[in-house]
């Protein structure tokens, strides 16, 4: 008997869960579809990428057009790269024969843009170089150097490999294998030399841009779509539909359904932006650079398959062409640890949104109209705005205590951590920040649920913080 009744109970319980899930899905679907079908969504989806593509393409176009001549002094202890850096339209190289300390002091007095120092290596081929500069190094310069160095090393490796192959011709080796075995990536550290000759580590612009960009993106996403959640809740309250709905679903389900639905709208918009922006940028830049390069990637691949020697040589030759402008920037972008960056971005983007959206939903539940939201919006927006205001300091000192605490505290971590990540953050800090953010999310959602479920049934009452506190303590 007991067994039977328990079984019955479990069955009921499962059915309950099933209908609950179905209802949440219905809510999510409604929230999603009504927003995606709106004209404003479609307009934003088209305008966004045009603006973003413009902000990417225009500066690059201008940068590649600058005729300012930059001189780079090269101190190559290895001797491998002597005369390998060919002058380009706006970079001149000259080679030094001295030691690093005199080179540095000479550099401070000269008009040179940068000093490239390739330290001697004992056994292996050199894969590190230091670029000293008074100002931040131009991306074109550092990526050109990087490119030349890696091509040179790859060529040396290839020659060694080919002579090896000629001595024992037994087994056939595929082109891909060879290409993979010689693939080299070069690290260039940029150091700033102050007026007084003092050195400090400087970060490449690309890290800053990436960090700032993703931080600002998260900031906007939270504000834009958090406010949409809030507006949605207020709409349900003012149109008096909320009580009709919560007679069918629990308030918490309605709140979460809305948060997830709006989040998916944001994600959709974001993905469309990325895809469209990427599409536009690719089309525009390929038009811009087609005259320089002339060969498409597919043609290169076809060549590579023709014959081994010719292919390898051809591939290298084609890649050796000056990687200016777009290609240079792409190269620099490729140097960032993207799997970590993208993974972290998605996490902080989503969980940060969820955390704030719950708070926004609570505000929406507590007030009667958007005009009343001010007093509650204030404490929520302060940490977000602060994390954007502090961004420029954090970028100056991405490992400092301010950066650390801001990237750990759940209300500021989504923005601040994303700013730090391109500079490299110890995994333990990233994980700590993620765990705290998740806990923060659970906490705010719990709190918001309590405020929300009381608030949505209160009409025409000015709510104070004291009142909210009472709502939180209701059973």
């Amino acid at each position, binding site marked *: 008997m007991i067994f039977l009744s328990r079984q019955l109970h479990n069955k009921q319980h499962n059915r309950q869960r099933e*209908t609950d899930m179905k209802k949440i899905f219905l809510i999510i679907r409604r929230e999603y579809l009504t927003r995606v079908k709106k004209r404003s969504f479609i307009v934003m989806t088209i305008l966004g990428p045009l603006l973003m593509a413009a902000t990417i393409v225009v500066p690059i176009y201008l940068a590649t057009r600058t005729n300012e001549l930059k001189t780079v002094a090269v101190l190559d202890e290895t001797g491998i790269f002597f005369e390998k850096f060919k002058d380009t339209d706006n970079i001149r190289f000259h080679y030094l024969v001295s030691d690093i300390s005199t080179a540095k002091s000479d550099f401070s007095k000269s008009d040179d843009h940068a000093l490239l120092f390739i330290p001697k290596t004992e056994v292996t081929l050199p894969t590190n170089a230091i670029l000293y500069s008074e100002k931040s190094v131009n991306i074109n310069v550092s990526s050109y150097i990087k490119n030349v160095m890696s091509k040179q090393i790859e060529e040396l490796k290839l020659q060694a490999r080919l002579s090896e192959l000629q001595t024992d011709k037994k087994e056939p080796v595929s082109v891909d294998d060879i290409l993979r075995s010689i693939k080299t990536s070069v690290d260039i550290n940029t150091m700033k030399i102050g007026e007084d000759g003092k050195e400090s580590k400087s970060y490449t612009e690309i890290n800053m841009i990436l960090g700032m960009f993703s931080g600002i993106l998260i900031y906007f996403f939270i504000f834009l779509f958090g406010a949409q959640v809030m507006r949605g809740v207020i709409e349900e309250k003012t149109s*008096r*539909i909320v*009580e*009709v709905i919560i007679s*069918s679903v629990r308030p918490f389900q309605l709140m979460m359904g809305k948060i997830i639905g709006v989040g998916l709208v944001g994600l959709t918009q974001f993905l469309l932006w990325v895809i469209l922006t990427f599409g536009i940028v690719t089309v525009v830049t390929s038009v811009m650079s087609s005259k320089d390069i002339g060969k498409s990637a597919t043609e290169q691949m076809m060549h590579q398959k023709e014959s081994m020697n010719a292919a390898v040589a051809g591939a290298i030759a084609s890649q050796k062409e000056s990687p200016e402008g777009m290609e240079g920037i792409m190269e620099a972008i490729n140097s960032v640890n993207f799997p970590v960056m993208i993974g972290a971005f998605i996490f902080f983007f989503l969980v940060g949104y969820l955390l704030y959206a719950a708070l926004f939903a609570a505000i929406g539940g507590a007030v009667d109209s958007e005009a009343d939201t001010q007093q509650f919006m204030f404490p929520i927006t302060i940490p977000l705005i602060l994390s954007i205001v502090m961004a420029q300091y954090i970028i100056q000192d991405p490992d400092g205590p301010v950066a650390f605490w801001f990237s750990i505290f759940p209300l500021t971590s989504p923005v601040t951590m994303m700013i730090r990540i391109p500079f490299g953050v110890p995994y333990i800090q990233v994980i700590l920040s993620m765990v705290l953010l998740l806990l923060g999310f659970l906490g705010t959602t719990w709190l918001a649920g309590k405020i929300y479920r009381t608030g949505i*049934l209160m009409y025409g009452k000015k709510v104070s913080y004291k009142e909210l506190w009472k709502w939180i303590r209701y*059973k």
Partner: protein
Amino acid sequence: MDLFSAHSVSKQYSNHKALDKVSIHVPDSHIFGLLGPNGAGKTTLIRIINQIIAPDEGELIFMGRELQPNDIAFIGYLPEERGLYKKMTVGEQAMYLAQLKGLSHHEAQQRLKYWFEKFGIRGWWNKKVEELSKGMQQKIQFLVTIIHEPKLLIFDEPFSGFDPINANLMKEEILAQKEKGATIIFSTHNMSSVEELCDDIALIDRSKVILSGAVRSIKKTFSTNTFGISYNSFEEPLQTILPPEFQVLSESHDMDHRHAQVKLPAEATPNDLIKSMLPHVIIYSVNEKIPSMNDIFIQAVTQQTTQPATRD
């Protein structure tokens, strides 16, 4: 048998008690009126039945067992504060609400089609809600409340916002639902609709049930044995021809007749009244002054106010 009953349900908010040991019994297939002045606790009780809020104490029995979360599928609720999403089309909206009540897509579509046909509103399906008048919106709300054929229907002030024609339509539809076997809880302070519709009532005032039972028996207990009589050809005060224990409450006259209200002692019948008047006057009509629900409501509430409850 009771379809639903509540047993000493209490709900405390931080600064006031919304419900104080409230018990009600809603018989199966009856229309049950939940009456009371504003702020008495009606809506709190209804929200508890709908499991929107939880009571602090008390027991809720539905269909012979304790009320369960799943039971909202058997309840249809039309709240006093009701509305629709303005930007959605009528059809989408109705489908959404019907599916939230647990109907499958197919079921929802078929039933809505039937009802839209019946109400003659088929053309509204693709209209946005904001294009409809308030009365039209009310129709849609009513329709989605009953769409899942619930056993228990709860209407909170259902006629507010309806014009008389639509109010009548709704009244008929509520009675039709009762015929079909639904039980209806009907919260209002509009007493005339209570007379027309309700079989039973509970009167809640300041968080407590102060009066409850079948409408007929309540009326009987509140009856004062008072009769109105219309007569003619007698100019003297009526009291002069009546026994002293018959109390004339009021006298008046218009062009044709004289009218009076007479309160009889408990054991007297209208026959005694007529007997004593017959030799002196021509009687045109005699009718019992049955207290209206409105009188009962006011009487019960004011009594409560003048004599604070002795229970606590």
